[in-house]
């Protein structure tokens, strides 16, 4: 792990000096801002059961669908395409260090983007009607879910990027994986129509993989360790597979 911080610093520095980082951040915050405002509009027209922050978190998958592929598709595919990976792999770095550094840089950037959306809630609290009861804890739960699920989504993106030397293919594959996990996982029960009647284990399984349900739990204050184990173990698997692929293709093994 000697070179991990050297590599991570290099990745972060590259993000820092690249204009596309700021453009992506701007567009992300713009879209999120519009969404938040649209939710608030909805609340003024007719009263809702839950706080606007909760509704905001429930649509977390919209930015995930486009941000995760955009953030991760470059990481390894671009190095491979331009050939700089050859330069990198002939220095005394290990494949694990390279993958972890790429993942950590993307993750830090992703978390930073979400961190800025906290302003929406602060503004909302600041201008809320006097005397209205506002519970900040669901927001913390929501952000914890974003942080944990982000690990999985970005590691899927890194995995997709390690498969190919084309950024486009990496982007499409990572979108498919993330989309598959969120949509497939949350509607597993409806998707499997061949099994009639539905067996009990299928119901249990679909309850475990339902990411929308997880978000509901977290943002209502239920920190479910089963979900945490699912996300972290899947993330580690995806990272492990990326390490194997890179080792096989460029590691000289």
């Amino acid at each position, binding site marked *: 792990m000697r070179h991990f911080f050297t590599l991570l610093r290099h990745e972060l520095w590259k993000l820092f000096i690249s204009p596309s980082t700021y453009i992506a951040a701007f567009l992300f915050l713009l879209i999120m801002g519009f969404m938040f405002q649209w939710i608030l509009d909805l609340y003024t027209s007719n009263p809702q059961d839950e706080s606007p922050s909760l509704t905001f978190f429930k649509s977390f998958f919209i930015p995930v669908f486009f941000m995760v592929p955009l953030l991760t598709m470059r990481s390894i595919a671009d190095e491979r395409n331009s050939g700089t990976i050859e330069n990198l792999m002939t220095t005394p770095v290990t494949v694990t260090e390279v993958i972890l550094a790429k993942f950590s840089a993307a993750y830090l950037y992703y978390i930073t983007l979400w961190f800025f959306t906290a302003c929406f809630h602060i503004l909302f609290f600041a201008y809320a009607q006097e005397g209205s009861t506002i519970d900040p804890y669901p927001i913390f739960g929501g952000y914890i879910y974003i942080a944990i699920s982000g690990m999985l989504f970005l590691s899927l993106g890194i995995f997709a990027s390690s498969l190919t030397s084309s950024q486009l293919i990496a982007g499409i594959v990572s979108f498919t994986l993330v989309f598959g996990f969120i949509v497939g996982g949350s509607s597993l029960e409806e998707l499997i129509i061949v099994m009639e009647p539905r067996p009990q284990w299928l119901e249990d399984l679909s309850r475990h993989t339902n990411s929308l349900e997880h978000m509901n739990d977290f943002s209502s204050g239920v920190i479910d360790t089963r979900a945490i184990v699912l996300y972290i173990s899947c993330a580690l698997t995806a990272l492990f597979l990326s390490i194997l692929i890179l080792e096989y293709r460029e590691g*000289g093994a």
Partner: protein
Amino acid sequence: MEEENEEYTIEVEKLHKRYGKLEAVNGISFNVRKGEIVGFLGPNGAGKSTTMRILTGYSPATSGIAKICGHPVAANLHAIKRCIGYMPENNPLPNELRVREYLKWRAKLKEIPRSIRNEKIQLALERCDLMRTSDRIIGKLSKGFRQRVGIADAILAEPEVIIMDEPTIGLDPHQVIMIRDLISNLRGTMSVILSSHILPEIEMSCDRVLIINGGKIVGQGTPQELREVFINATTYELEINGEQQVLNNALKKISPDLEITKFSKFDNCTFSDVEIRGQGQHDYREEIFNALAQDDAIRVRSLRRRQAPLEDVFLAATRRSWDTVDNQIAIAETEEKTPQDSSPANKPQEDSVEDAVSKK
């Protein structure tokens, strides 16, 4: 074992690399001594880059042994990465960084201690004449500067073995001379392997040349040795005033090996430009000069021996090996075809259909 390790920094034995059916590297064996500069020559697709990649541990060999500084590449990947400086083909560099920034990062990755890091970067910049360019963005540099950044990176950690794939491609003559001097300065301290298409370049800077074709070494040795093996003849250039027949008679008296290969008159001049080819390595200059001086019908204005350029050696070596490769392919094809061509009647039929179509 110990002595062997100290003597050779690179040892390669029966290296094979196969991509599907294609045998990219086919049983290459060679050794490189400490401080020796070795040039790889070969036409495109000969297996030069593949061999270099195997040596750096970037791509694995199908079979065979490659050792760097005594460490087997396949078994001890980490040890060999600390012994090499590598500049890949096409010299890929991150376009968004500045030169000094990039070298600093590379120095960290190459585990140069912090105390001497800046010193080494400075040295590499000076050696490659990059001082005035050190704060520019790599993506905006011209090809020659990029090439020098790649070389600076390869020599940065002063490793025992430096492997450079076409380091002088795209450089202007001034820069080529600079790089040649730089490589010559490394002689004796570091082993250098470099590939190039620029043959005079190899001849001037390398102690030894390996000619590779079709994944095999078809010739190795100093340029002089290669000449003796592949072009066993010497060419003499003369300017004489006289008839070709007279000259021919005079030459036959010296040795039957000498023959006139070119005899052309200069414009507006009584002198002719003559090329004589002599078999073997014997130097006939003095004998030719004496014989022509005694002959009254011929006056000589100049006489010199011309060494076959490395280009001729290269062409001869690779042509010879292509012939064998072609033969092998032809043999393999006939072997493959014989069981398939059981119905020879098909072919003439197709031809006649085609003929009919073209006639219409």
